[in-house]
């Protein structure tokens, strides 16, 4: 029984991981660009982006999942996600990526604004372009500063993926819960905690290594 449960949970955890990894792949770069938008000198860019960040951070992710999945069908009369598992996963991914990119963008913004003006000026007076100054000088200093808050968000994301089950994405909590109905046992659900714990433990070690790696400068 234990082996059977473990295998079933592993399958669910595979889905959890897939959602986790793809969300990060999209949300980290997207968050950087949203942070540029939120700092733009153009009010026409800055204010809509800030409105977006407010809405996304100001409403529950659970609700966003439901709206992203059911919204198009209700509003457009057309379920853009298609039917089946893949459609639900795509809707979940979009909701997660957008939600996390808004949180990341605020961390990026804080990091970027914490870099002293003198770093930019030193680059400019040496004849560098804005782009060169940002990518060659500023970004790594920003990354060093934001590793702790970003790792916090990323570890939260591991557990937030469980919200995807409201639109029937078969992630690990779903797999665990299934045993309540099918076998009348609840321990598989509790057992899912071990998977989260081991995975977030690995991430903690990884982030610690990154912090160490960036310790060579101050």
């Amino acid at each position, binding site marked *: 029984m234990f082996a059977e449960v473990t295998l079933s949970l592993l399958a669910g955890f595979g889905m959890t991981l897939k959602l986790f990894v793809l969300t990060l792949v999209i949300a980290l770069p997207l968050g950087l660009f949203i942070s540029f938008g939120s700092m733009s000198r153009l009010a026409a860019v800055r204010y809509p982006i800030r409105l977006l960040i407010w809405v996304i951070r100001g409403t529950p992710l659970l609700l966003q999942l439901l709206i992203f999945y059911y919204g198009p069908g209700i509003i457009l009369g057309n379920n853009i996600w298609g039917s089946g598992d893949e459609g639900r996963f795509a809707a979940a991914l979009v909701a997660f990526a957008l939600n996390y990119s808004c949180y990341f963008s605020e961390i990026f913004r804080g990091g970027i604004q914490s870099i002293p003006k*003198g770093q930019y000026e030193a680059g*400019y*007076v040496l*004849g560098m372009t804005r782009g060169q100054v940002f990518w060659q000088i500023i970004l790594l200093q920003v990354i060093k500063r934001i590793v702790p808050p970003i790792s916090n968000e990323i570890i939260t994301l591991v557990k937030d993926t469980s919200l995807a089950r409201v639109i029937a994405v078969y992630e690990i909590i779903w797999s665990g819960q299934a045993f309540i109905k099918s076998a009348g046992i609840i321990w598989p659900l509790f057992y899912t905690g071990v998977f989260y714990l081991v995975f977030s433990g690995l991430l903690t070690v990884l982030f610690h290594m990154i912090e160490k790696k960036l310790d*060579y*400068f101050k």
Partner: protein
Amino acid sequence: MALLEVLNIEKHFGATRVLEDISFSMEKGQAVSIIGSSGSGKTTLLRCLNFLERPNGGQIKVGGEVLFDAAAGKQFSDAEIRQKRLHFGLVFQSFNLFPQYTALQNVCLAPRLAAKEKGTLRQEEVEIRERGQMLLEQMGLSDRMGNYPHQLSGGQCQRVAIARALAMQPDILCFDEPTSALDPELTGEVLKVIRSLAEAHTTMIIVTHEMAFARDVADYLIFMDGGRIVEAGDPHAVIDNPQEERTKQFLARYSAG
């Protein structure tokens, strides 16, 4: 012909007049010192020359070419400003070294990026590196090239910053209170380096609070107060025998202190 001509530069921040009618010129190979109390506009003047601030009035010419003319009212593109900036180098009070790069990387970064843009990095790579090493040797930092800024003393950081500015071969090197952030015992090593640059006839504008240094090193001295040039001329004459009341007051405080 004068290498640099600054004509009637004005700068306001809102209602605050920071620079009023600043004019001076300098020849190639000269060192000009600017002295004056904090808030007198010295730093803003250097920032205008380096295009970190835009003057509200006046002209800046280098080698006869008009780099900036407020009357023309022209908005420059980023690329144009970059070109104009390359005439000047700036050494900051707070060094502003790039913390993630070694001393040598700090010196070579801008030349490398410039070469990369031209598509000549491959040919120039070795030359840029050797030039960087030579500049750091000249600054007395042969054994510090691989160190990161946080592993260096303030005086060493400032010398790296000087090498970094020289690496772009500016026509005029500007110093903004280069020793004000340093312990008195570290001040000497930086001043020694600037002195050797002056002896090699590097064209420099030095904003400083080191009166004796300004007098010895500069060919021309400017005393600024309240955004204006109050007195200017031969450094020995101005410091040892000031004509203006305001200059006397300022210098008296220094000799007393």
